[in-house]
């Protein structure tokens, strides 16, 4: 927002939860096509003048209304996204692309198709399949299939090293994602903004415990440092973004001792400030630049 303001680019910031209410929306389909306006916080934009839409963890449409209901959410969501999608604006990211891109099992397959190395992975509800996978790969991690966490009660499920004596019977109670543990020398976060690829690397401490698998939870004094992107990875990432129709993606890789970057996941709405603060990489500026660029989609 601040960067767009500095460029003199008009911005309307809104939360779909506030529609109806603080957010106003009106569109008429007539002989001239669709003419409409969107307003919030005293600002207004014509749908025809909209150059880009940045979707950043939006609220559920209609959920802030006094008479909120599932039906109102459907109505508000269809009206807002349907009309916005009917504009010529470029999206970071298109909602339907974002929806698919959140599916981690789909991510793994797409990464394979794009030539990015993916650690051997099993997603299963069959205990015998899990045991067989464990016999073949021995050192495993487990992580949520969805990337989300239980809320009742609130828990976090970090990517965790599977205990050597694990009993896989409980796999039958819910889909379980098991993956060969990459003995990593570093974590890599690659932030893709349009055509720009900005990668950062966080070295694993020599004294790190093998159980400290998840960089989000592992204690570390190391900082993120900017790193170049190997040509093959860049090609794979660009192929991934094209196939997924994403303008933004935060890719996580585990780098092994040979320097191979193993694809772990791509978060289509991943945070980037923590990388920018450590590395000074101009990610915010890249996002603002992409959003400010005039011109129709693709």
């Amino acid at each position: 927002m601040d960067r767009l303001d500095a460029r003199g680019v008009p911005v309307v910031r809104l939360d779909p939860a506030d529609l109806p209410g603080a957010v106003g929306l009106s569109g008429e389909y007539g002989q001239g096509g669709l003419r409409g306006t969107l307003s919030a916080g005293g600002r207004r934009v014509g749908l025809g003048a909209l150059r880009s839409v940045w979707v950043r963890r939006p609220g559920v449409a209609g959920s802030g209304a006094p008479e909120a209901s599932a039906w109102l959410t459907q109505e508000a969501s269809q009206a807002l996204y349907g009309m916005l999608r009917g504009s010529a604006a470029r999206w970071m990211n298109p909602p339907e692309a974002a929806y698919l891109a959140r599916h981690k099992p789909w991510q793994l397959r797409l990464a394979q198709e794009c030539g990015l190395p993916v650690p051997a992975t099993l997603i299963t509800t069959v205990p015998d399949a899990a045991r067989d996978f464990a016999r073949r790969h021995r050192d495993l991690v487990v992580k949520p299939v969805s990337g989300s966490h239980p809320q009742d009660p609130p828990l976090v499920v970090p990517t965790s090293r599977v205990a050597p004596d694990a009993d896989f019977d409980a796999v039958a109670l819910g889909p379980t994602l098991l993956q060969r543990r990459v003995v990593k020398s570093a974590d890599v976060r690659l932030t893709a903004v349009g055509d720009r690829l900005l990668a950062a690397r966080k070295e694993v401490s020599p004294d790190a415990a093998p159980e400290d698998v998840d960089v989000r939870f592992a204690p570390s004094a190391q900082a993120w440092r900017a790193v170049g992107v190997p040509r093959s990875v860049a090609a794979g990432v660009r192929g991934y973004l094209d196939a997924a129709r994403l303008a933004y993606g935060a890719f996580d890789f585990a780098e092994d001792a040979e320097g191979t970057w193993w694809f772990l996941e791509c978060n289509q709405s991943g945070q980037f400030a923590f990388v920018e603060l450590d590395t000074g990489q101009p990610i915010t500026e890249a996002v603002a630049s992409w959003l400010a660029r005039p011109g129709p989609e693709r």
Partner: protein
Amino acid sequence: MRMFALDYARPAEESEVTATPAYRYDPLLQLNVLDDGRIAARDRALLRELGSTTSTAGSKTHFDD
């Protein structure tokens, strides 16, 4: 018996969610601002303190604006 992955779960930390934010949303500017009116996103120390961590997927703190 419970789902396999839950054997590796731990309680979520709630401190960042319950703490009083050091900023507020200014609807006219459409930006988060500090008490003295400065734009919060320009305060690198604050970013580091409040919003610079890697997502812990469940975190309610986002500060990328």
